[in-house]
């Protein structure tokens, strides 16, 4: 097992109270596998990614749990070794490439930094290696682009440069946090193609995080659905999309527009909105929006139980049905 997250809990300690962005999550990522993490905005997806790398900004922090990467618990690693994991073991690409690139340095230097840091190459060699990485990310004229500043690149190019930075340390796991959200549709397709292609080439695992179920379904072998800091359903992607069990997952899938479906099949949404993480409903946090909910759901949060082969679901009603 490459990455094994156990009962991870992360919170922000605000003046208004404690905000549990990640509330007891466990999952595994095997080497070379692509795992998707789906959920609406504000459900804590990004905090899962930041928790793995122990990068949660103040006033938040990982409160408990274990993040085993190649058998070592990252949350208890000395800072020196944690730095080696960041970049060389686990690479991450952020949603806003434009903001994540430093505006005052050339693209090539930002990539070469990673190479010098984690592969110990000299400045000159690191630069030519950076150009190679850019080329591998499908950037045309990589020598010229390496000398460019971020503001000279288009959105798609910036995202590719960001991926190049993440891949420059040859990580075994790439965390892609909303890798295509800020891009327009054609570029989105290019970026997801690129991710697939570099995965073939470098054989790393990918944890892809997005609100976009279609993107995740397109890329991931397995998919996890997250709601208010917890996982509500995990399954092989095909099964999750084909036979979703949790009412929330069913709602998400029902909300995807199908081209050519016609007006006789109305698009179904999920009623209500994601609750405030500071003021969560009791029991199953989804119950106010759930069509199956009854009084039982308001008492205790349902555990994530095996519902079928390699298929887990956190819902009292679903378990009763099976």
């Amino acid at each position, binding site marked *: 097992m490459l990455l094994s997250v156990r009962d991870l809990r992360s919170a922000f300690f605000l003046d208004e109270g404690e905000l549990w962005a990640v509330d007891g999550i466990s999952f595994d990522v095997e080497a070379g596998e692509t795992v998707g993490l789906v959920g609406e905005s504000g459900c804590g997806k990004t905090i899962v990614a930041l928790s793995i*790398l122990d*990068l949660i*900004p*103040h006033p938040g922090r990982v409160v408990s749990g274990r993040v085993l990467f190649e058998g070592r618990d990252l949350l208890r690693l000395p800072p020196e070794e*944690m*730095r*080696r*994991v*960041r*970049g*060389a073991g686990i*690479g*991450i690409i*952020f949603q*806003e490439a434009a*903001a*994540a*690139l*430093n*505006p*005052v340095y*050339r693209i090539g230097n930002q990539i070469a*930094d*990673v190479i010098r*840091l*984690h592969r110990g190459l000299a400045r000159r060699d690191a630069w030519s290696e950076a150009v190679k990485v850019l080329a591998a990310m499908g950037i045309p004229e990589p020598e010229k682009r390496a*000398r460019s*500043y971020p*503001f*000279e690149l288009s959105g798609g190019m910036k995202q590719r440069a*960001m991926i190049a*930075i*993440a891949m420059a*340390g040859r990580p075994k796991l790439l965390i892609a946090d909303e890798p295509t959200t800020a891009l327009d549709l054609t570029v989105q397709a290019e970026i997801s193609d690129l991710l697939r292609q570099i995965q073939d080439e470098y054989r790393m695992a990918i944890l892809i995080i997005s609100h976009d179920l279609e993107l995740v379904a397109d890329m991931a072998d397995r998919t996890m659905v997250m709601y208010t800091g917890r996982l509500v359903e995990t399954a092989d992607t095909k099964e999750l999309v084909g036979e979703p069990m949790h009412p929330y997952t069913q709602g998400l899938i029902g909300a995807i527009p199908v081209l050519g479906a016609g007006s006789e099949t109305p698009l179904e949404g999920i009623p209500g909105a994601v609750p405030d993480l500071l003021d969560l409903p009791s029991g199953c946090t989804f119950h106010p929006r759930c069509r199956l909910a009854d009084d039982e759901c308001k008492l205790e949060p349902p555990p994530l139980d095996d519902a079928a082969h390699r298929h887990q679901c956190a819902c009292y009603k679903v378990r009763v049905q099976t």
Partner: protein
Amino acid sequence: MRRENAEPRRSPHRLRALIPGLGHLALGHTGRGVRLMLFSVATIFLVVWRWDRFIGAFSTPFLDRWLASIFLILMLAGVIWYSLRDVGRIQQSAGEERRGKSPWAVAMRRFRENRLAVYSIYIIILFYALAILAPILTPYDPAAIPDVMANRYLPPSGDHLFGTDEFGRDLFSRALYGARVSLSIGLLAMIIAKTIGTLYGSVAAYFGGTVDNVLMRIVDVWIAFPTFYLMLMLVGVFEANIVVLVLILGLTAWPGTARFIRGEILSLKNQAFTESARAIGLPAHLIIVRHLIPSALSPVLVTAALAVAGMIGAEAGLSYLGLGIRPPTPSWGNMVAAGKDNLLNAWWVAFFPGGLLTLTLISFSLLADGLRDALDPKALMQKYV
């Protein structure tokens, strides 16, 4: 950034550029050509005119005389190197406009558009050059006292450009040597204050929490002392010479910078590029030095220019009060003090050092203005977003 497609490596223009300015003139860049030529002619003239001192410096043990002569050589080498390179650049980019695009290059272009600021840079460079070249330029020994009765209080003339003082010493020579004291104290004290302040403030901001609290409370205490009286006390305790003054001025001025930088870094450290620097495993000291400080640096540069003016003013103030540099070592401050009693009879004694001082302070202020406009992050962002 160098282009590979420079086919006409050895063109006539390039050879002609060996004489500074000629290449530019041939290419039609008249203004720059004339300026380069004047500069090199003046340098060569200086070498020939003061040949004995220029060459004689190398047989003396005095570091400052060595420096002055080496500086002259560097000036000559520099102007040749620059004009060669510049001619090459002009030729390579014949037709197309060469515009640097890094944020610094953008700022440089904006700075050049501000004439006052550019002139102040020229004046500042000129004064520093005069100060370094003082051993070669000065007609008289600044401390030598000739026949006092025959030479005291001579008005400005061809022999004595700035006149003489009560001991018959040449004020022009003294003013140039005074420039060395005043200008070097200002620059060095600024560098000390800004370096300490920047590092201190960014460490406090980056690590935050208790570290920040402790460090900033120290700054609060430090700032609570009235600086000038602190300086008065310190120069009372330690005997004032250049080193002591630099240390006192530098070490009393850093807390302001620290506090200022801390604010800048606090807002920068939560930006996505800092987060991604941490995500690639960059160690904290490199994040601070490579990512945070450069982004916070432009306002520091502005305050640095003002700080030099402040430091020079403070040194002049202390020396004026007789607490800084003591005569016979000249500094602009103690020269003004020496002339203050004879303003009506011998106005030149106080006027020239005072005027140089004023011109220097104004130049640094205008430079700061120019830097502020050129480095304005909002204006910069417009160009590259």
